[in-house]
């Protein structure tokens, strides 16, 4: 198959048509001109219905996620980068080394081909940076509504790097809760673009792969009991869900949770609580107390982990599992799940 891309064949003003999703000539052109140049590997290049994979273990971790973010391009990334790093992060949270991804696109008629190319290039960069191959995929085109929508599903296969599963049921009384960095960047980067907020130091999404930090923790023989990446619903939601899954009580110190000045100001203005704002490159880890200091040192070796901090501890089993936040006044509040997304408020 000729995978050379001739510039004349990709007109910047060309858009995605319904025909691109119908499996005929247009679909083949799209694959040849956009997908293969970016994702080419021996498995994908066969362009068969399924990918035959050589997996050197029976401890396979399999995950899937779909990405629908708007706007598709935001400070710090785009939907393509998110589609790769998000699924790599799900594998990492299970203690798995990522190997293969599948990638399915649902694109709206009218979507700019140049934007698709930009998104695909972004996916290629992330996949290559983490030595992951995209081995199978699909493209569908739906009828035009606004012409700006693209939805991506990525499924990931990884191999477990741990003997004992990393899971909320492994959380133990006395465990320390570590947070890998400051919170609220991704959600506020998106809101800033949507609401036209102007920053003196722009908020950049924290969108990124957590796999290198997790692999480093495991190589350093840190006994990781549980991991959770913070996505929609923010730190608070993750902690509440884990407390309920583990049937434990967690206590966190509010002052230990880092929020940048820009994120904090934007949250104050919109009436948002940073604890509930989305992240895409942060996680919490539950490790034994005697290893907390060592684990933090490992994380701080990474740029993305330089602000890692100890934010709390696991008190123990509770008949009312809760995530409780202590503040500097010496009072506490119980974290809870929001009913729906945060909406900007004036009250």
């Amino acid at each position, binding site marked *: 198959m000729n995978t050379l891309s001739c510039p004349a064949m990709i007109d910047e003003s060309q858009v995605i048509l319904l025909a691109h999703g119908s499996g005929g000539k247009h679909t083949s052109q799209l694959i040849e001109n956009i997908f293969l140049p970016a994702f080419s590997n021996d498995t994908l290049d066969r362009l068969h219905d399924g990918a035959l994979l050589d997996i050197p273990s029976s401890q396979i971790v399999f995950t899937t996620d779909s990405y629908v973010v708007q706007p598709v391009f935001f400070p710090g990334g785009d939907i393509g980068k998110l589609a790769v790093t998000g699924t790599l992060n799900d594998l990492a949270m299970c203690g798995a080394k990522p190997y293969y991804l599948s990638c399915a696109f649902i694109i709206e008629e009218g979507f700019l081909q140049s934007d698709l190319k930009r998104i695909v290039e972004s996916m290629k960069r992330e996949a290559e940076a983490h030595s992951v191959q995209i081995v199978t995929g699909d493209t569908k085109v739906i009828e035009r509504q606004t012409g700006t929508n693209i939805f991506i599903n990525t499924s990931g296969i990884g191999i477990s790097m741990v003997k004992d599963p990393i899971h909320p049921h492994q959380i133990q009384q006395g465990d320390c809760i570590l947070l890998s960095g400051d919170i609220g960047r991704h959600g506020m980067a998106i809101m800033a673009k949507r609401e036209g907020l102007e920053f003196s130091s722009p908020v950049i999404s924290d969108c990124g792969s957590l796999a290198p930090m997790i692999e480093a923790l495991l190589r350093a023989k840190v006994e990781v009991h549980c991991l959770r990446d913070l996505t929609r619903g923010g730190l608070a939601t993750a902690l509440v869900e884990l407390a309920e899954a583990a049937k434990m009580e967690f206590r966190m110190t509010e002052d230990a949770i880092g929020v940048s000045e820009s994120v904090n100001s934007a949250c104050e203005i919109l009436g948002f609580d940073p604890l509930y704002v989305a992240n895409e490159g942060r996680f919490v880890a539950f490790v034994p107390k005697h290893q907390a200091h060592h684990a933090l040192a490992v994380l701080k070796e990474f740029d993305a982990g330089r602000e890692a901090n100890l934010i709390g501890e696991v008190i123990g089993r509770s*008949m009312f599992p809760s995530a409780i936040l202590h503040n500097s*006044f010496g009072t506490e509040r119980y974290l809870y799940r929001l009913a729906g997304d945060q909406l900007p408020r004036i009250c």
Partner: protein
Amino acid sequence: MKYVDEFRQSALVKQWADALHAITTRPWTMMEVCGGQTHAIVKFGLQALLPKEIRLIHGPGCPVCVTPVESIDHALYIASIPEVILCSFGDMLRVPGSYTNLLAMKARGSDVRIVHSPLDAIKIAEDNPNKEVVFFAVGFETTAPPNAMAVYQAKKRGLKNFSLLASHVLVPPALEFLLQSHDNEVQGFLAAGHVCTITGYRHYHRLVHAHQVPIVVTGFEPLDILQGIYFCVEMLEKGTYAVVNQYQRCVLEQGNVSAQALLEDVFQVVERPWRGIGTIASSGLGLQAQYADFDAALRYPMKETMPSQDNGCISGLILLGKQKPSACPLFGKQCTPETPFGAPMVSNEGACAAYYHYAKRDCFIEERML
């Protein structure tokens, strides 16, 4: 954030909490009027710093909670009209009307947009000359002047496709209503600092002397609230009553004169029902006759009002501090933040939502122990 963080310093807050403990000798019941103050009390856990003798009742100063169902239903009706863009502050989107809410209408295809300023709605009208833009104007005296400016600008610019659905409420009539009720237990008030930034507080002197209750104009940060409670308790302990201004960095006794001037030009005092409470005389703002062309209630009259439904919600009693949310038979069962029966369960600063999230655990443990 400058001029915010300084008023959240824990050392200062604890000093005032200690001072409050030192002067409190008997039980006192106070009301913080403003929902923003309720939000701060709950968010920072300030109740736990107070002497146990002090009972704080969360007042009705939450536009989300008190905007009448009829107004929400009218907004929903207008949103259903195909050529309309309905602009609203985010707070109102989940508040239930008789049958649905604005967020659900948006999901079903209505053009409902969140704005951060009433001038955004003006801009939307200018950018969409073929659409009708209706701004759902709710709030207390703080929000009324910005909303008034939008109507004033619309008239000045000759905008034909902009109108306002006004549902403003006023604080002093609500306080008067509370103080006149025979079973009122509130002995002192923390008045809403930002409302007073607009209105001033001259009119509170009459209330204070007629009912012999101290009123402290209070800000919104933890230090402000602790100071406000302290000044109020100090007067109660001495048996004195007066209007005291704690929020001096923002509030002048005469208030904001230029805002008051435009308010008088654009709005007039009208009757207004308060959700769950009923009609309070002269407690609302509606558009003056010279702005009738911009009145969405006239432009899009409701053909029929929804029959009022008694779904068992006792929000009125809760908003006036006469019942705790946990006393409501629906609380925590049929009525939750995901399935709210009334507005105080929807709002961030509603008493029911606050109880659900923060006091539920204590209710749960009590139930287990019975």
